[in-house]
């Protein structure tokens, strides 16, 4: 996932919440929780960088946390909240 070029699906809306954000997919009607503000920051800036890894670097995410971000983004990708650019 770290080498992919991703973006938020155009049918997905993000709503900020105390714990992070809610993501709602208008086509699949799926509701997903982004359970950390850093995940929200990363998701929002995916489109501005060539790859996921570049995004994580740009967002100042400590490399030790990359595996957990990889996991979170993979699950968002699998639920179609993110898609390939």
């Amino acid at each position, binding site marked *: 996932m770290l080498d992919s070029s991703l973006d938020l699906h155009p049918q997905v809306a993000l709503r900020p919440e105390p714990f992070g954000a*809610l993501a709602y997919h208008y086509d699949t009607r799926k509701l997903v929780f982004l359970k950390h503000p850093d995940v929200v920051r990363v998701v929002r800036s995916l489109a501005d960088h060539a790859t996921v890894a570049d995004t994580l670097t740009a967002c100042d995410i400590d490399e030790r946390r990359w595996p957990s971000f990889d996991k979170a983004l993979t699950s968002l990708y699998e639920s179609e909240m993110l898609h390939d650019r």
Partner: protein
Amino acid sequence: MTVDTAPLVEQLKGGLDAPICLTWELTYACNLECVHCLSSSGRRDPRELTTAEAKGVLDELHDLQVFYINIGGGEPMIRRDFFELVEYSIGKGIGVKFSTNGAFIDADKARRLAAMDYLDIQISLDGTDAATNDAVRGDGSYDTAIRAMEHLRDAGFGEFKISVVVTRHNVDQLDEFKALADEFGAQLRITRLRPSGRGADSWHDLHPTQAQQRQIYEWLLAKGDDVLTGDSFFHLNALGEEPLPGLNMCGAGRVVCLIDPIGDVYACPFVIHDEFKAGSVRDAGGFSDVWKRSDLFNELREPQSAGACASCGSYDACQGGCMAAKFFVGIPLDGPDPECVSGHGEAAMLAASSGSVAPPKPMMDHSKPARVPVALTRR
């Protein structure tokens, strides 16, 4: 620090900036008079929100980024501005899921509904045959619902939902409901009967027995994967190790709320009672102020005590059950659910009824006046 922080349920208990599951009953008017109606609907309330007021609320929900609303009633399609409001909502990016008995879905309306994006429909049906359904929902209501479903299918609506309130009398039909849904390319949704509205009077005769509770739990574990349940059956989680799919907590005032036809905001659609009224969309601060600042909602977002359930090993799974169900049978809110699978509900109800206070009655009753049987003259 990991990306996953506290378990989701714990985060939701503290409340959200806006509801996820907002129900808006558009009108108390209804062509039917189901014996278990949670809102005691029948007659229109003259204080009903106007079209302009309703649009004002939708503007607010848009600003709050509410993703979708559940529209109900009464029968929402009775409102003349029904399509106007639905289109306005969808135009604002607020998806609509609405519940209907189907009486107003003819071929034309079905085509109109099928042409809209972000619209989901739930047809209410409480039996897979007319006798079972009509006993609860009224004469002819089974045929009406089936006709509406046929219109939706013919119009190419796609996957609509069939919504069932599980009772003592239809619990054996779960497989048949599933088959009916499959036949229509629809999705099945089953919900719990709660003693709310007119349900307060019919609950004792209609609610599933202890043996049937287990039957529902086992059916959901075996076949419930693509069946929707919302927060209906989490009290049954006390029956086993495996939690049921769905929202396993009471979301009242935290992620759930109700706007009633006259704009009053309640903690949940099943508690139309002053004790759970947080305010009105007609108040100066509108809906957002009620959601964010009402004393009631803030109280509900505080950690709740396990009360009488504290000593029960199943509390984590069952959470003491549904607040509305307890309230309307007179059980204290920190007592066990009336349908507690360990049988503590019966005793709690008995204790409640032996006290001097009767269980609270729903405060809004829009039932049609009772049809007084015409006395036959004796000669």
